[in-house]
């Protein structure tokens, strides 16, 4: 296991390095945007003097490299500065929203991942049957339709025609967990529909890819039942690609859900980011982007480690 720990630490090190590079890109990309906070906040009617005064107050005139280092130093300690628009600390602006986003992502993932893998195993077992074709067409349809369209369809049928769930998923702090689940059901279902196809198809492909292996033929010639050939003999060797796709989809659930949040008026971090861009609230934009980048890097790291853990050669060295 010593090797494994070292491997994980090494990957983690690379991950941090990547994050550093990303932070540079984020900071200077935001710098490249036309105008600055002072102009954006004060609007067109501002006099040059007031703009200059605000720049002095925020320290915007100092060289970008200095400001980057300051920002990075703060970010490392969890201090992303102060929102240029509201004056509140950035963490207070987006902290609660990030938690909401994580809740929604976890909600969708808990349903979607087992469902997709189960469906993938099933279509691999029944490959080239009618069920396989239908499942493929259905999941492809759901992945090809825009999320907002799926969201509105679900609202139409499950909130308006059949008033089972609320169309607007606004949350408040004093709701019970059951209420939260009920409120967030439609956005979560939309996300499930969007991510299932990808994971299911990868599960199917990874399993079918292995069916030509000698050990699968051996299992068949041992009289092993078809479902057991798939579940017991193919699936354990197919985890690596499946885990990678699952990780990519989890990352998407956290970082790519702006449209779903808008449709359901869900108070997530995606909306906060869009608002901040519109208002040129650079500290918020930078913080949100960095959180997204870290999410991606962490999930991919987890996928790598997961893929390694499913390989018996690495788990049980000679």
């Amino acid at each position: 296991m010593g090797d494994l720990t070292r491997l994980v630490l090494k990957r983690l090190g690379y991950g941090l390095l990547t994050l550093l590079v990303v932070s540079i890109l984020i900071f200077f990309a935001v710098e490249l945007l036309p105008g600055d906070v002072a102009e954006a906040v004060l609007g067109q009617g501002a006099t040059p003097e007031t703009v200059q005064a605000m720049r002095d107050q925020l320290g915007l005139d100092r060289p970008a490299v200095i400001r980057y280092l300051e920002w990075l130093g703060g970010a490392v300690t969890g201090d992303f500065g102060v929102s240029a628009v509201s004056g509140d600390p950035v963490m207070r602006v987006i902290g609660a929203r990030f938690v909401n986003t994580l809740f929604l992502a976890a909600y969708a993932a808990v349903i979607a991942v087992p469902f997709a893998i189960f469906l993938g195993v099933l279509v691999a077992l029944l490959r080239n049957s009618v069920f396989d074709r239908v499942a493929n067409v259905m999941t492809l349809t759901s992945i090809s339709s825009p999320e907002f369209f799926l969201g509105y369809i679900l609202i139409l049928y499950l909130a308006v025609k059949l008033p089972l769930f609320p169309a607007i998923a606004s949350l408040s702090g004093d709701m019970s967990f059951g209420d939260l689940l009920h409120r967030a059901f439609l956005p979560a279902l939309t996300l499930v529909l969007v991510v299932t196809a990808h994971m299911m198809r990868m599960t199917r492909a990874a399993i079918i890819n292995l069916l030509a292996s000698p050990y699968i033929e051996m299992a068949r010639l041992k009289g092993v039942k078809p479902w057991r050939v798939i579940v017991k003999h193919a699936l354990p060797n197919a985890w690596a690609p499946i885990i990678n796709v699952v990780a990519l989809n989890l990352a998407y659930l956290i970082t790519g859900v702006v449209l779903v949040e808008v449709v359901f008026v869900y108070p997530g971090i995606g909306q906060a980011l869009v608002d901040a861009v519109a208002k040129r609230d650079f500290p918020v934009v930078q913080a949100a982007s960095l959180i997204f980048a870290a999410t991606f890097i962490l999930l991919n790291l987890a996928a790598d480690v997961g893929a390694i853990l499913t390989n018996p050669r690495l788990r049980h060295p000679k």
Partner: protein
Amino acid sequence: MTKFSEKDVLLRIKDLQIQGYSEETWIDIIKGVDLTLHRGEVLGLIGESGAGKSTIGAAAMGYARDGTRISGGSIEFDGMELTTATEGEKRALRGSRIAYVAQSAAASFNPAHKIIDQHTEAPVQYRIQKRMAAQEDAMELYERLRLPNPGEIGFRYPHQVSGGQLQRAMTAMAMSCRPDLIIFDEPTTALDVTTQIEVLAAIRDIVDQFNTAAIYITHDLAVVAQMADTIKVLLKGEEVEQASTEQMLSNPQEEYTKSLWAVRSFQRDQKSRPTDGTPPIISVKNIDASYTGSAKVLDDVSFDIYPGMTVAVVGESGSGKSTTARCITGLLPPSKGEILFKGEKLPAKYTDRNKDQLRQAQMIYQMADTALNPKVQIHEIIGRPAQFYSGLKGGDLKQRVDELLDLIELDPAKYYYRYPPELSGGQKQRIGIARALAAEPEFIICDEVTSALDQLVAEGILKLLDRLQQDLGLAYMFITHDLATVRSIADEVVVMQQGKVVEQGPKDEMFTPPHHPYTDLLLSSVPEMDPNWLTTLLEERGVDNVGEAADVNQDPPDGKAEDEPTK
């Protein structure tokens, strides 16, 4: 045939026809084969690749591989017709009454599960035994098959066990339900000769002990002679002839069978080192080498190769033969020692060598299939080194390629624009030879060039290499584990074991006693046509003194070459 009576018939195949799907049509691959097998009988199926041996073996279980179908005839197993049985009925036979042992145990054990979990799967599924009882039984079988640590070895994963041990574990697995019939599909082809013996002995014992019938598929006549009561020879999906083993060996009837028997006859005269002070063309001096971060794989290896001579480097897999070749070509710089070319030192890394030095280290590979780019035409494969080393262009280049194709006995008009997948195995290997020749070297490394080929084809390649050596004065370093090949073409022999040279000298001396104990072990492990060879050998060595056991006995306690798990 008198040994078995009509009422003991276990498997009766009549007029079996199997088709394979290829290029959008169904092609006959088995064209009406009959086969009768009695309880306790071992039938050897032999033939070249493509003869349909494995296909018949699978069909005996009512199984058609993907892309094939049983299109006619009948397969009757113990009164049950398999061609009309349902999938469920056939599945109930597999593993319980008919078992299968595959060619590569390393690939046929599921890497994700422990060996014993795979062993007990069938008996538990068929409710023959409870899990714990099946486990006890597995350990007993491991013991009977003389696996080391029978109580513990099953709890390892396949990658933690060596190839020969895995092959025996697979035989044990086939025995788990005490089947009436086992199909052995080339079970020792992938093993070294020393390992092969123990697997053969184990298979023969266990088949005897349980009076199991078996179909033993192989292309190695000497192996089948040890195992089978009856031999059936196949050619391109048709039976050539069938007879009892003794009769088949002493008195084959058909021309094709006779040609198979005669295959090991090619032999050329042995040459000796020049006496006029010519320096060796390649001189390997005291080299050590290791792959990054691992232990030494070469330890003080030295030998010389003189112009125009063939030096065979023999040893088991993992003995460092190919690593030595990699050092000579500069792909793996040695950590100590040097390589001399005609007395001059060659730079250790190939990137530091000039064109003229690079030209001298040409290689021909074992797997012509993977050594040739399938998307590049033949003339380009051969033309590229000719262009690179000799700067030929246009008409000159075409002429040179034609010349090279003539040299390897392929018609330039026919093969110039072909792609590798359109060629047979032997033809591909010839292209590999032409590619090496295109650099106009004086020295070529042949790495197991005939191991993947059928005997008749291999013979053609050996003859071609010999002719080229005479015409062009080439020196060969011939890496092989096949001592029959060494006998036919080598001038000198270098025996390697665990990265060391244990013995070297002219071929005639090497093949005459006294030998180094390891050379002796290698030599005596090569199967011979005599059907009593294995029995005699086992008597001489003692049952517990073959293969791994023999290795351990003659080595210092820390060195166990065979215990190295498969990579």
